[in-house]
Every structure is written in C-alpha cells, then in structure tokens.
C-alpha cells in the first residue's frame, strides 16, 4: 500500500501528541504525549526511508529511540523529585515563578 498514508498517520499521531501536551495536566501524561510525538517522527522517518529507498531514515529512527530512552531517564528523575516534594505531578501546581 502507499507509504504516504503512513505519513498521514504520523502527522495524526504527532498532532494527537501535541494536543495532549497542551491539554493534559499530569506531568507524566504530558511526557508520554511527547514520547508519542517522537514516535510519530519515527514513523515518518521509516516511511520516508521506505520511499527514498535508503537507510538513513531507519537509522535515524533507532537513534531517536535511544534519545527517547535517555529523555525518559532524565525526565522521570526530575518529575519524580518534583512529585515527591510537592505530592502532586500536576504541571499547573508548579507555577511558583511567573510574571
């Protein structure tokens, strides 16, 4: 089937992820939405790689996964420490600094 459809799917996923970032409160969920966006990108990479018939895209996808993993490590560390000190993972509670 036509790989372009994968692109549409990628876009869809990306948008879903972005929307999630914008509307969800829980830091963990927000983070997951970001992961979703990254994976959307992966999908796009693979699809393009398929279209162009070279491997760069696929390689890129692997790197993205690694990066995503690293982000998880760092991200969770931060979010958890925040959660522990505030007993809430809501990003809206974390608004000491403003104006």
């Amino acid at each position: 089937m036509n790989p372009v459809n994968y692109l549409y799917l990628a876009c869809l996923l990306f948008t879903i992820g972005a929307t999630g970032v914008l509307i969800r409160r829980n830091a963990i969920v927000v983070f997951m939405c970001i992961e979703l966006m990254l994976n959307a990108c992966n999908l796009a990479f693979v699809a393009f790689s398929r279209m162009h018939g070279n491997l760069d895209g696929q390689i890129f996808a692997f790197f993205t996964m690694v990066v995503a993993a690293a982000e998880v490590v760092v991200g969770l560390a931060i979010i958890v420490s925040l959660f522990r000190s505030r007993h809430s993972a809501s990003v809206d509670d974390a608004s000491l600094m403003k104006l």
Partner: protein
Amino acid sequence: MSTPTVHSLWTTAAEPISKIDAPKIEYAQLSPTLIVIGAAVLGILVEAFVPRKSRYYVQAFLAIVALAAAFAAVVGLAAGGYGTTKAHIAAMGAIAVDGPALFLQGTILLAGLVSIFTFAERRLDPEVHGNRVDSFAAQAASVPGSDSEKAAIKAGFTTTEVFPLALFAIGGMLVFPAANDLLTLFIALEVFSLPLYLLCAVARRKRLMSQEAAVKYFLLGAFASAFTLFGIALLYGYAGSVSYATVASVVDGSVTTVDPALADTMGNDALLLIGMALVVMGLLFKVGAVPFHMWTPDVYQGAPTPVTGFMAAATKVAAFGALLRLLYVVLPGLRWDWRPVMWAVAIVTMLAGAIVAITQTDIKRLLAYSSIAHAGFILAGVIATSPDGVSSVLFYLAAYSFVTIGAFAVVTLVRDAGGEATHLSKWAGLGRRSPLVAAVFAVFLLAFAGIPLTSGFAGKFAVFKAAAEGGAGALVVVGVVSSAIAAFFYIRVIVLMFFSEPKADGPTVAVPSPLTMTTIGVGVAVTIVLGLAPQYFLDLAGQAGVFVR
C-alpha cells in the same frame, strides 16, 4: 510508488552488506569534543570510585583541566589553519571543522571554563556543620526539608555530579554548531539539553523553584525537540538524506542524480518549507526567541545562578552557531522564504524582550528578558546573510557570553539570610555598601545597554552594521528603538544601586574565593578590551566567517 521499487529496495538493501568499510574518524580534529566527553565519562567513574570527601576537588580539577586542554586543542586546530585553509568535513560528513565551528567551540569552552569556576565556588554560603558548601543541593534526590536532606547536609554531601553533567553539556554544545548532518544536530541537541535539565534541578536554596524550573525546562525542551525532530523527518523526506551537503544541493536544485522517488518528493515544497520551519523553530527555542522564549525567565530564575549564567551564555552560543550553519549551509537556497519570517521574529523578539523587562522586579528574570532582547539583536545579524553577518554574530556571541556570565556571577555575591537576594528592591543602595561590586555590575549593565567603550557597543554596532549592509535597515531602526527601551531598565538598576538610600536590613555582599573573582575579572576584562580594542577579535571572527560545505 509501485511494487518494483520495493524489490529494488530489497535488492539495493541486500547488496552492499558485503562491503561496509570502517568509518574513518579524524580524531585530531575532533579532539576538543573528545577530550570534554572523555573527561565527562571519567567524571562518572570518579563519582563511582573516589571517596566523597575528595570528589569535589577531583571533579573540579578534572573539569577545569579538561576544558583548558580542549580549549588548547581548539587553539591548536585554529593555528593549524583548520579554521580557514584546511577547513573540511570530518567524521564521515558528520562534523564540520571550519572557522565558525572552531570560533564557537573556543567561545563555548572559555565560557564553560569560567562558569565552572562559579560552579566550584564554595565561599559564598556560610559553612554548615563545618563543611564548605557550593550552590548545589547536598543530595538532589532527597525531598526538600526532609530528614534525608538534613542527614545529607550533616554528612556534608555535595552534588559533585554537576561537573560531569556540565562537561557532557559542553560536549554536546561543542558538537551542536559543528554538526554537519541533521542526525548529529539532533543528537548534539539532546546531549547538551538533558544535562542542563538536570543541572537546573539541583539548587541548594529555593529547591522547589529549582525543581519547577527543571520540569518546565524539560517538558518544553522535549516538546521543542519533538518539533525539531519532526521537521528533520520532513526535510529528510524532501531530500532523501540527512547530510547538510545533500539537502542543500537538493534545495538549491544543484543535485546531480535525481532518482524518481527524489523527483517525486522534490516536487512537494510543503515538506521542505514545513520541515525548515519546524527545525528552525527548535533552534529558536534554544536561543529564546519570541514566541518560543517563555521558558527563559522561569528557568533562569529557578536554576542555580551559576547554571543560569552558564546556560544563558553557552546555550545561546551553541544554538546560534547551529542556526547559522543551518541557514547558511543548508537553506541558503530558501533565503527568500526564511528571511521575512526571521525578520518578524527578530523584530518581535527585540521589542518584546525590551518592553517586558521594564516591569521586572527580580534581577535574574530581568537578565533573562534582556537575554531575549539580545537574541533579537543577534538575529538581526543572522538575517544579514553575508560573511560580515556571520562574523558579526560570532563577535557578538563572544562579547555577550562573558558579560552574561560575569553579571550572573555578581548576582551570586549579593546575599541575605535566604541565599541570593535577587529581588531588585534588595539591591537599593548597593553602590553605597560596596562600590566596587556595584561598579562592576554597572559596567556589565552598560555593556548590555550597548554604551560605547564596552564590548556591548562593539557587538551591537557590528551586528547592526552587517544588517544594514544586508539591506535590513528597518531592522536596525527597530533595534535602535528597542535598545533605547532596554536602556531604560538597565539604568533603573543603576539608579537603584547608586542613587537610592540603602535599606538597613539590606543584603550583604559575600567576599568570594579567587574562583568567582577570576570569573568576574575575566568578564570585566573582556568587556573593556572588546570595547576599547575589538580589532583583533573582529579579525578573528572575520577569518572565521566562512562555512565549509
């Protein structure tokens, strides 16, 4: 797309397995990065094996030596002509070794070095339980105010991890402006972002704010990099490659062999334009340009001040470096598409930064907004799209980073019971209390304001000149207006320090160790020298103004 291509894919995919030749890496030209990263790894081992008591010394020493060595390496490379005649693409096309790269790497390394000094400063806070303490949490993992934290403090723990983290960040920053394909670009971006997120979280005082800053920075940063990544994906989709050279050739249509797939995607400009827009947006986020600037004030305020200084300086340098390379090497063919957008961004950034700063009440937030305004000024230089533009931006970045680090270093000195006294009202009459510190800070403020005889003026002039010659006269006018507005709040601080009566319960000025003194001293020295006799450095930047492709 029809089935034959699938087979062809398989075949093409199957074929070359037999002959993969080992990549050839020019270790010498990559030495700066390698040294720093290596030192960082070493730092991790130190964390693992060296006893707590001595870690601080080992780590600090290691970091300083590594940065110094890396800087030496950069100088060596530059002296070896790699900046000009021998400029070339290294590491299988992943890394460019050329003038801008080396200049920026040098700047980043120096900035990093002086920031490390402030990282290592432990004279500012009073000793707790007989232990000297720096500005980082005893144990970042422990809950603020919890027993475990108290215990950690009692035991005299310190977060010595900051040094390797900083080194990793610097390592990433070194690669960022040198990255010569989108993959390296992205990896470098993450490599220097992730440690920064962590560094933001480990302040000793005001830990809640620190953590909040980290969360904000992290979430927004990740969000932004997701966009970048998607942009990269689209560019890849358009050009069928991630290497700058190829993409560029495809973009300006100078590509030689066009297979049907490429022809197909090349036809679709949307891919290209959206891809470009998203990648650029990711970089604009890093430089803190409006409307992607909103993380800056909060993060700058919450992060430990030494980290803030480091971020404000080094991140900007790296990010602008990458932006320049992207726009000048990959997308010159699209000049007529991205210039108008950048125009708008630059104007909005200059004005918004300057205007919002007027009503700030916290010195760190104030500096954050000023950094936004400055990002706008630098963008004006970027838009020039001429060698002059490049060199002016390089010069501006060098000048600006030292002023920034110096300014934040001064901020660390002004303290009261709650740690740093960053609220402006506390700064009233500082000029009476300790004229020297106030004078130094005034020098930095004047440099920010771009008063002649300071590096700020030279930089601003260079950038505006380049912009004007690049036909962006209107931008210069806006820049002038916004610097007038900006001048207002810098002056406000000076008024506060010198002309208003000090409060009885005002903050005290801590006497720092030679470390911070060096930082501030270097800051002042660079500010004055680049103000009075910028010629040498302009030459440097001028020679470094050409990208290799």
